[in-house]
């Protein structure tokens, strides 16, 4: 039952991402925490893992359509790796409640941007 709900959640988030152009993680993390009872850390780690194949498929599609600037992507990706590694280590040692609050701010920011764009 939970498995079916997980697939359904992925489907819904993939659909919304495609329709509205919002990143999967922003929707996925709160769904895992509030809907499936994940701790904030495990929700975040699972979200990152789910992003790996999703972003690869997306990037390859854009590359084929010629809309990707590989030099920019490599520079951002390399710098991003450094930031992600350091911040992910920090996240393992921060209280879950602190991350929840920070994520709340992120959601408010995402909501503001989404509202302005529509």
């Amino acid at each position, binding site marked *: 039952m939970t498995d079916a709900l997980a697939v359904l959640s992925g489907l819904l988030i993939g659909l919304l*991402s*495609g329709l509205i152009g919002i990143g999967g993680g922003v929707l996925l993390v709160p769904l895992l925490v509030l809907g499936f009872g994940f701790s904030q850390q495990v929700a975040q780690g699972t979200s990152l893992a789910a992003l790996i194949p999703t972003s690869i498929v997306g990037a390859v599609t854009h590359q084929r359509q010629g809309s990707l600037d590989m030099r920019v992507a490599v520079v951002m990706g390399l710098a991003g790796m450094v930031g992600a590694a*350091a911040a992910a280590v920090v996240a393992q040692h921060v209280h879950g409640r602190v991350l929840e609050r920070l994520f709340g701010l992120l*959601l408010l920011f995402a909501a503001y941007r989404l509202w302005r764009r529509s």
Partner: protein
Amino acid sequence: MFAVIGLVAGILGGLLGVGGGFVMVPLQVMMADVKPLRANANSLAAIVPISIVGATVYYVGGAGGHPAVDLRFAGLLVLGGVLGAYVGARSASRLPSPWLARVLALVLALIGLKQLVVP
């Protein structure tokens, strides 16, 4: 410039478990005059290494030696996500969705407030 943008996205991504596209796309457009479609493509490509490194650290370095990644659940999400993204991409041009975006914005704002205030 792009290194700074990537670094900021990586830090937010690693700290909060998201890709960081929400900072990479607008910052490329605002700071480097990149066209939105290209900015989106560059962002997705940069999320590949960010998510790989991030997920690895969460898996290996989880508190108390427990991996902070549910791999099986992630696999199920991806399974549904691929289907959803395919359908979404095909119907995007036909479905005018400003109202959908607004409803979603309101829902996100409410959840954000809840997470901020209520434990």
